[in-house]
């Protein structure tokens, strides 16, 4: 007797980040609330994909699911062809740290430390030795156009410079997946365009970059934009 066929989802190997029919239901009130409803999307290496939608559309939950912080109620997520949702938590936590970099609207830099120390600290947490961490931190800062502020304390930098340092920290250690949650929301228009254009450049170097934004102007820098409304994909533009 043969065992029944079990459908095992096979991720497309070229997708660095893939969400398949992801739903998230939260039970924080009396009624269960569906925050994400059947969202399927993929981000290949080399591409900047924007998810755009008004506040409350489910954008932040999407970032949390993609980063493995929140597990989907239904559906699955894969990163580099692996399934964090089915993997043991500890294994994935370690894997996530050296695979996925995250940039938030709030920058979360350590204000008293220099830009280099902020990035190097993240690398030391990944297991790099101090000397190597500092030299790689400097090259990441150069890459994002923040080399000139490497020795400046984070709380003395402009918001735009701080965001570049945060991006340097997120790509440090050659992490192939970058999640950016409203990275330009605190910036003026010119700095916002520069930071989002930088995310596009970083994608074209071979990273998979997911940008979450409420702002269509920022989404216009992406290769593809997915419109999220009430937790569902309501539209999509750009090559698939």
């Amino acid at each position, binding site marked *: 007797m043969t065992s029944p066929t079990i459908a095992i989802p096979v991720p497309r190997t070229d997708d660095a980040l893939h969400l398949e029919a992801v739903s998230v239901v939260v039970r924080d009130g009396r009624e269960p609330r569906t925050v994400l409803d059947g969202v399927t999307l993929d981000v290949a290496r080399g591409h900047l994909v924007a998810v755009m939608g008004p506040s409350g559309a489910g954008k932040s939950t999407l970032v949390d699911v993609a980063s493995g912080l929140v597990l989907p109620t239904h559906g699955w997520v894969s990163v580099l062809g692996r399934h964090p949702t089915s993997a043991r938590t500890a294994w994935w936590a370690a894997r996530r740290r050296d695979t996925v970099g995250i940039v938030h609207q709030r920058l979360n830099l350590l204000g008293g430390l220099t830009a280099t120390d902020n990035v190097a600290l993240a690398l030391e947490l990944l297991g790099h030795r101090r000397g190597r961490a500092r030299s790689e931190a400097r090259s990441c800062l150069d890459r994002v156009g923040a080399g000139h502020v490497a020795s400046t304390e984070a709380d003395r930098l402009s918001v735009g410079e701080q965001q570049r340092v945060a991006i340097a920290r997120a790509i440090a250690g050659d992490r192939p997946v970058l999640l950016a949650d409203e990275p330009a929301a605190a910036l003026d228009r010119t700095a916002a365009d520069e930071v989002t254009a930088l995310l*596009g450049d970083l994608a074209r170097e071979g990273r998979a970059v997911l940008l979450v934004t409420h702002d269509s*102007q920022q989404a216009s820098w992406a*290769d593809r*934009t997915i419109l999220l409304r009430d937790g569902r994909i309501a539209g999509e*533009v750009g090559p698939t």
Partner: protein
Amino acid sequence: MAVREGLLALLADKPRHGYDLRAEFEARTAELWRLNSGQVYTTLDRLERDGLVDADDDPDDPSGRRRLYRVTAAGRTELHSWLDAAGWSIEPQRDELLMKVLLVADDPAGAASVIESHRLAVLERLQRLRQEQRHLPDELAPQLVSDALVARLEADLHWLDRCEQRLARRTEHRP
């Protein structure tokens, strides 16, 4: 803009033949505006009649048939007053997107749908233009034309966002 001012501007650089004017006009305008030779010669005849250009037989042309055109002092004055004049209207344009939004503005759902579909269309075009911009040749004319298209699409996006905010405020305040 008229072809007439375009030809005057090119002749202000140096004397040129008719066929040279046509090629240079297209190169300078990134081929946005293609001329046929009939247009070029008709315009040159009128400019000559109005005393804005002079034409001589080209001494370097062995066939003796080619004429070399050069701008006159009156031609330069006319050119500069055209270059310096604000040639646009500050009246609202009868723009199709503006008309669509105005016609459905009293219906919040209809307006939201018009805004959203146009925003996606503008976004798609803008995304494609930004990608094309990375591969533009290192020539000024196509870069300037592309910048103009990007700036207009950004303005459309900005305006659609403003429409959405205004419509949302009205819906909130409605009893």
